C-alpha cells in the first residue's frame, strides 16, 4: 500500500513537472516555437536560462542561430520583430540587426525559419536580443560575449 502511494505521488509529481520540459521553448500566440542555439550544441538554450535574462558566450561557444518552427499547420500573416542591439562604450544601445517577419508558412513539414546570428555577431561585447510578437514583447535578454582563455 505504501509503495502504491509512493508511486502515485511520483506519478502526480511527474505529471506536474512534465510541462517543465516544454519550458525549453518560447511560443507565440500563433503557435510558433522560437529556439536559440549556441554553436556546436544540438539542444536549444533552455527557456529557464533565457528567462534569467542573460546568456554568455565564450570563445567558440557563441550564439549561432535563432530557429522559428511551426507546431501546427498554419499559414498567414505574422507580426514578429527581431531586434539585436549592441551596447556601445558610451552606454548607449545601437541597433545592429533587425528583421520583421510578416508572412510565413508555419507547417510542421515546411516550418523552419533560421536566422543566423553567427558570424554577424562574434565580437566581444554586450548585446541585447528582443523578440516582439504583435507589439507584445515575447522575450528580451542580454547576451554577453566574453574573453576566452588566452584572449584579452
Amino acid at each position, binding site marked *: 500500500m505504501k509503495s502504491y502511494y509512493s508511486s502515485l505521488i511520483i506519478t502526480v509529481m511527474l505529471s506536474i513537472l512534465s510541462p517543465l520540459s516544454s519550458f525549453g521553448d518560447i511560443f507565440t500566440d500563433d503557435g510558433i516555437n522560437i529556439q536559440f542555439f549556441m554553436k556546436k550544441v544540438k539542444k536549444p538554450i533552455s527557456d529557464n536560462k533565457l528567462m534569467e535574462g542573460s546568456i554568455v558566450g565564450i570563445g567558440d561557444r557563441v550564439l549561432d542561430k535563432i530557429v522559428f518552427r511551426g507546431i501546427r499547420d498554419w499559414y498567414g500573416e505574422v507580426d514578429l520583430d527581431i531586434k539585436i542591439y549592441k551596447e556601445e562604450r558610451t552606454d548607449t544601445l545601437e541597433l545592429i*540587426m533587425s*528583421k520583421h517577419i510578416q508572412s*510565413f508558412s508555419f507547417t510542421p513539414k515546411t516550418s523552419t525559419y*533560421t536566422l543566423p546570428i553567427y558570424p554577424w555577431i562574434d565580437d566581444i561585447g554586450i548585446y541585447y536580443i528582443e523578440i516582439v510578437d504583435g507589439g507584445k514583447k515575447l522575450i528580451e535578454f542580454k547576451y554577453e560575449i566574453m574573453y576566452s582563455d588566452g584572449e584579452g
Partner: protein
Amino acid sequence: MKSTYSILLITVILMSLSPITVLSDFVTEDGIKVQLFKQKSKKPISLKSYTKNSTDESGFQEYEIKVNEPIEKIVLSGIFEDNLEDLPYSITVTNVLTQKVVLFKDTLTFGYDSRTYSFPLIPWIGNSTKIPYTDNKGEYIISIDKVTTERYNEDKIMIIKYTIE
C-alpha cells in the same frame, strides 16, 4: 615564321585581355574584394549585372543591382600584400523604406592575414524559400565604410543599392 608571329600575336592579345578577369569582382581602392553570391551558385554575380552609378576621386564607388531572388551571401576579402597594416572596416545593410539597420558589423579587418569574411544575407534580407512572401521584396543599401577613430565619421568607400523586385 608565320606561325611564330601568330603565336606571339595570340599571346599578346591574351595578356592584354587577362585584366578583364579581375573586373568580374568589385575591388575597392583599399584592395577589398566584394562579391555577392546567388543561392546555390558557386560563382559570384558578374560585374555586368551591376550598374555603376558613380566613382569619385577618393575612390568611393556606388553600384546598383536589381534581382528577382534575394542574394544569399556577401563575401569580403582583403587582397593586400603582406606587411600592410590592418585596416578596420564596417559593413551596414539598411532598409531604404524603413531606414532601419538590418545588418551591421564593425570589426572587419583586412591586412596582414588578408582575411575573408562570408556573411549570410538570407533570411535577414528576403527569405530562403521560393514562395514570394512580401518580406522578400524591398530596397536595401549595402555600405562598406572605413572606420575612423571618430564615431559617426566613417569614410564611405563603397555602396551597393540592392533591390529585390
